[in-house]
């Protein structure tokens, strides 16, 4: 089989790309997409470790399933907030949404 | 090894005649995929002819009757005509996505056939998560609608897609919930296991309500009348595929026709015993299993055609109300009730034992209890709905002043 470190490398690369997306993008939707990439990198790691190290313990798969649930909830609420913000300010640039700044 | 029946033993036979083992394996799988993917497409050609004849009879017309005997060659003539049409890509279109969308539409239907057990020995892939897989690949169909509408750079297409996607996503909920019942009854998500669990009793008798719910929501998933808001010709020009022409349009068209028949096949597999015929005949002659399956699928297909031709199109708000206020609550209650009744049946000890699961008589007590539960729930639901509607009608007629017809639109 493909050795474990290859999966870990892909996951690390995916996490870094997602992190770059979160930090460097202006648009809030694009930032959310970056977060999704990071969550999926985590999931890939969970499943890879589960398969290679503890295939008889369900914790890896169960936690990956919970991450999926949280990701879905996060996107639903996140996009709803973005649409609400867009409706009020006609913009979804993260830099424009700073009403709470003193 | 006998090499007279190459359907099941193609790979070993090729190895016997001197092929490389991996190559033989690849060749046999590749051939299987091609046959499995082409077969539904060929069936669709006949279905198009049949549906046009059927609709024509209902509408007191003759239908296609010029090309070939009984107009049988009409679909081929149509294909030749469509091939000759100009292949238009609108200005400002996203070319790659525009071209991928029709293929994805057909793919979303064809992928379902990969897990359908056609006979005791003919199944593309016996996935342990077959039922979930069916729901998963259906999302490609939704995606292709978005791709098609967005990439063709047309406002009407986009408006059509918003409607369609709302419809498809909404009706996936009761679809998945009613799919849960056969999974629960068979104790497995694999379609092969679900089929075999019906050797004693078809699930349509055990769970008629979920069969009806599944049928209604799958009819909506195909976007056929009465749920044909996808391409409500009179309202949306032509819906999401307005910019498509020639063979690309034909792919959407074929995808829709194939989807209707595929739903018939799914109904047959999930609720009517799939390839199981009478007297275990399909075990001795496996090819008969395909015939049984297709006969059953045709019954559901004809039912779908009848509904399509008999019931007028619903409005978008009626469509959504019907789903969220009727189908979804009923399917949720149905799932809870079936789970509860199954436990009750087990506790009472009238569930068939694993050894007798394939026996018709041993299944009768359990079936009776579950069937009675379904009937009671169905009557309750119909009662609630009809009293509710009566109240609404009374209120409406009390509120309404005399308005000329159509003035309120």
């Amino acid at each position, binding site marked *: 089989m493909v050795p474990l470190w290859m999966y870990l490398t892909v996951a690390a690369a995916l996490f870094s790309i997602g992190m770059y997306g979160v930090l460097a993008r202006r648009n809030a939707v694009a930032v959310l997409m970056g977060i999704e990439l990071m969550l999926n990198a985590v999931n890939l790691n969970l499943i890879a470790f589960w398969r290679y190290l503890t295939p008889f313990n369900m914790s890896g798969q169960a936690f990956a*399933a919970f991450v999926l649930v949280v990701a879905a909830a996060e996107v639903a609420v996140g996009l709803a907030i973005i649409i609400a913000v867009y409706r009020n300010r006609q913009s979804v640039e993260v830099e424009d949404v700073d009403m709470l700044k003193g | 090894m006998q090499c007279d029946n190459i359907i099941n033993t193609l790979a070993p036979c090729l190895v016997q005649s001197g092929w490389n083992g991996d190559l033989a394996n690849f060749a046999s799988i590749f051939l299987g995929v091609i046959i499995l993917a082409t077969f539904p497409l060929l069936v669709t050609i006949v279905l198009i002819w049949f549906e046009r004849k059927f609709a024509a009879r209902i509408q007191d017309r003759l239908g296609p009757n010029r090309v070939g005997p009984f107009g049988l060659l009409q679909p081929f003539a149509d294909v030749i005509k469509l091939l000759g049409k100009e292949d238009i890509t609108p200005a400002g279109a996203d070319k790659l996505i525009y071209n991928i969308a029709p293929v994805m539409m057909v793919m979303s239907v064809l992928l379902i056939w990969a897990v359908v057990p056609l006979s005791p020995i003919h199944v593309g892939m016996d996935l342990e998560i077959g039922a979930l897989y069916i729901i998963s690949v259906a999302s490609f169909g939704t995606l292709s609608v978005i791709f098609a509408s967005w990439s063709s750079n047309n406002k009407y297409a986009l408006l059509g897609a918003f409607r369609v996607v709302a419809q498809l996503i909404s009706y996936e909920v009761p679809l998945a919930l009613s799919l849960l019942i056969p999974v629960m009854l068979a104790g497995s998500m694999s379609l092969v296991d679900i089929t075999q669990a019906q050797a004693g009793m078809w699930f349509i008798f055990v769970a008629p309500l979920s069969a009806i719910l599944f049928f209604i929501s799958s009819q909506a998933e195909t976007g056929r009348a009465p749920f044909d808001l996808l391409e409500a010709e009179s309202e949306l020009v032509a819906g999401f595929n307005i910019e498509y022409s020639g063979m690309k349009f034909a792919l959407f068209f074929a995808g829709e026709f194939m989807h209707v028949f595929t739903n018939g096949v799914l109904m047959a597999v999930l609720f009517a015993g799939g390839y199981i015929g009478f007297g275990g005949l399909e075990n001795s002659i496996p090819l008969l299993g395909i015939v049984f399956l297709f006969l059953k699928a045709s019954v559901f297909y004809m039912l779908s055609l009848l509904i399509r031709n008999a019931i007028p199109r619903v409005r978008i708000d009626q469509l959504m109300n019907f789903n969220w206020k009727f189908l979804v609550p009923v399917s949720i209650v149905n799932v809870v009730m079936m789970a509860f009744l199954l436990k009750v049946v087990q506790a009472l000890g009238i569930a068939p034992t694993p050894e007798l699961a394939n026996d018709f008589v041993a299944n009768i007590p359990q079936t009776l209890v579950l069937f009675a539960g379904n009937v009671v729930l169905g009557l309750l639901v119909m009662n609630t709905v009809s009293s509710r509607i009566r109240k609404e009608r009374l209120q409406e007629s009390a509120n309404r002043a005399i308005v000329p017809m159509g003035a309120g639109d």
Partner: protein
Amino acid sequence: MNFGEGLTPEAFAFGLFTILTLGGALGVVTSLNLVRAAIWLMLSLFGIAGYFVLLSAPFLASVQVLVYIGAIGILFSFAVMLTRGMTNLKERFNDQWWLAGLAALTAFVLLMVGVIVPAFGNSGAPVSDQVTTTVDLGVALVSGNQYVLPFEVASLLLTAAMIGAIVIAREDD
């Protein structure tokens, strides 16, 4: 199937999914058109589903396709199409993009050096060829001494998120 020395079908599939995942991810963070970005995202997450199949977790692969392509990808496309003027951005990145790049690169290097390089030498064979099935996952999720509480909390979270999303996105009448 043998594509040459050491290139098993599994390695071939792994390579394909790597191209899909990482290529898609790069598309997500660089594309100016956000609908395109959503499509890249779906491609990338489809690659992840492929990995799940390779790692013999078919249930999660199927759920991944269902949730990410069938729900989240479509939600993203809708959000982008509903908020006009987002389909074509003027600028890709904000002013600190080089700082962000530096941070991401540092994270990657740290992960590689700290965690992954030490594991390079391992042949990396899994401890067992046998794996638990979907049935085991289902039992684990609902059995009292394992994950039934997190499972219920997750369902509650989903319900709360659904109601919350409707309340937030709803237009005031």
